[in-house]
């Protein structure tokens, strides 16, 4: 079919739509709402995903965590027994794993912390002087604080660095630096305050609700000393690319240290922060798909609306179809004319729907109920919604158009 003829037939289709403005607008509305809903819903999902990713990136993606016990799969622990995680392993890791930059032991204890007449139950983590780098922690610059040094760790100094939440609870409106807090009657001097990281993605609430202290002091003064098992070892790789090799090196070392036979399953766990971040992001992907699918149903309903109105349009214009056929229109000419009408409805509706979806996602957080929701309109979701709406137009427009094209001209001319 010639291009010029196609263009002229397209003009016919367009004119037919402008003749029935109300009908055209209402039919389009179905598609506008459908496309708008898909874009707005997917933008909510994408916003949630980005939020989760940002939180994990704040923890540092080149991080590894070693803990005792094998990995939990489906709630059941596989592997044989649990071997306690010993302090000397930290030094071994630092000495023998070239891809590892820093490693810190972690002792954890939950205690009541007292300052003057206030007290607060929080997590006290005994770590070494590199933990701020490993955990991607920075100091809150509004206070003249610092992180503890190697000498303090070696000597078991009773100093501590506070998480942002403990500051708000123990030192509302005052400067904690230099003050002394008490944990189980042991005085710790506050030497720094960490900058807030916000809510964690997983359980346990805020990551700022904790206190860091030299592990030596925590072990000796709070946990009773001795060769107590570590809660975990936090490791950071040299850079993000070497995270995998660091993981392999640490796993190898741990197997050797625990004297595991080849083929025996691990009795410890090395977890990669990037993997955890990914699995958390995956769960937000499910949310995106779910929201998108629900919205797609309204797009589908819009498509059925197009089909419905096109069938009406065809039956209203049987006489016209007969005239066109009698004077020489071919089946394809008629098909294209009616298909164009459906496609114009869906494509113009699609464009307006993109604007609606975009507007909705931008304005959503002005509604108090959705104030905390972040939304991201991705090019992908716009293209997907638009492509889907065009497909809907072709798919639902084809049947009425083909019905028109396959009419018998004699019958059509006789139709009253």
């Amino acid at each position: 079919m010639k291009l010029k003829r196609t263009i002229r037939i397209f003009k016919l289709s367009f004119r037919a739509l402008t003749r029935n403005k109300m009908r055209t607008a209402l039919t389009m509305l179905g598609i506008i709402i459908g496309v708008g809903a898909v874009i707005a819903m997917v933008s909510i999902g994408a916003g949630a995903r980005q939020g989760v990713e940002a939180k994990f990136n704040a923890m540092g993606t080149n991080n590894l965590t070693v803990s005792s016990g094998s990995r939990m799969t489906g709630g059941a622990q596989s592997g044989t027994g649990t071997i306690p995680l010993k302090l000397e392993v930290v030094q071994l890791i630092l000495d023998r794993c070239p891809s590892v930059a820093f490693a810190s032991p972690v002792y954890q204890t939950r205690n009541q912390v007292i300052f003057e007449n206030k007290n607060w139950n929080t997590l006290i983590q005994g770590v070494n002087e590199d933990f701020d780098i490993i955990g991607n922690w920075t100091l809150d610059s509004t206070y003249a604080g610092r992180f503890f040094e190697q000498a303090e760790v070696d000597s078991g100094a009773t100093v501590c660095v506070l998480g942002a939440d403990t500051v708000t609870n123990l030192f509302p409106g005052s400067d904690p630096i230099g003050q002394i807090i008490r944990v189980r009657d042991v005085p710790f001097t506050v030497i720094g305050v960490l900058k807030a990281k916000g809510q964690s993605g997983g359980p346990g609430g805020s990551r700022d609700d904790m206190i860091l202290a030299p592990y030596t002091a925590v072990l000796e003064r709070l946990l009773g000393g001795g060769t107590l098992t570590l809660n975990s070892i936090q490791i950071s790789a040299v850079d993000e690319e070497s995270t995998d090799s660091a993981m392999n090196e640490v796993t190898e070392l741990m197997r050797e240290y625990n004297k595991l036979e080849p083929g025996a399953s691990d009795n410890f766990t090395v977890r990669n922060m990037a993997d955890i971040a990914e699995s958390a992001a995956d769960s937000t992907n499910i949310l995106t798909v779910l929201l998108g699918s629900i919205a797609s149903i309204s797009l589908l309903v819009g498509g059925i609306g197009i089909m419905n109105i096109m069938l009406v349009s065809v039956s209203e214009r049987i006489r016209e179809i007969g005239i066109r056929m009698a004077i020489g229109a071919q089946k394809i000419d008629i098909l294209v004319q009616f298909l164009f009408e459906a496609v114009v409805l869906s494509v113009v509706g699609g464009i307006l729907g993109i604007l609606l979806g975009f507007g909705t996602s931008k304005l959503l957080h002005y509604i108090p109920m959705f104030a905390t929701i972040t939304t991201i309109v991705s090019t992908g979701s716009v293209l997907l919604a638009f492509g889907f709406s065009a497909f809907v137009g072709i798919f639902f427009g084809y049947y009425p158009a083909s019905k028109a094209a396959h009419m018998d001209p004699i019958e059509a001319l006789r139709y009253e």
Partner: protein
Amino acid sequence: MNPVLIRLDNIVRTYHIGEVDVRALRGITYNVLRGDFVAIMGPSGSGKSTLMNILGCLDRPTSGTYFLDDQAVSGLSDKSLATLRNTRIGFVFQSFNLLKRTSARENVELPMLYADVSGKQSRERALKALKLVGLEGRETHNTNQLSGGEQQRVAIARSLVNNPSLIMADEPTGNLDSKMSEDVMKIFLDMNREKKITIILVTHEPDIAAYANRVIHVKDGLINREDVKLDIGQGGTR
């Protein structure tokens, strides 16, 4: 050029209605010469509409052969039939069959859309055809603003624009009063005499049929009788 424009050889058209076969045409053999003006008459149910549809390439015969302009029509595809209707045949109907809410000029341009005539040329040809049927100054009027006679003249202009070899007119004066009928028939007569366009006219009014050179009477699916105007006296063979 072959002087015979239409050659019908034993044309049979059978309709299947339920389990009954209705033979609308039972073997029509007839030739129409170029430049002739033929009227088809017959009571309703005689098969004249079926014959009209076959001659107009809107329908195919069940058996028999039909040559239009030396082209065998019987075996053509829908697409080729559409092209044939577009380029060789002009239609004029009893109920005008113009597009509503569309101007006279655009109605006349319609066949040229499907013949891929350029926009500028279609416009020129449409204006010329409208002038020919005496509708100069009415080009931009929508069809519903025109009288019945004017509408039929628009339809005639439309049938002419692709320079067809044949104009099929199905009861063209059926919806017109006698004055308008006379005007319309005069245009047909002019087309036939001056432009040598072959016209086949279906009517049941004897005074309309009288404009034609020959009148064939169809009855029970067969040509029953043929009247030839004595002053012409040539052509059609049975």
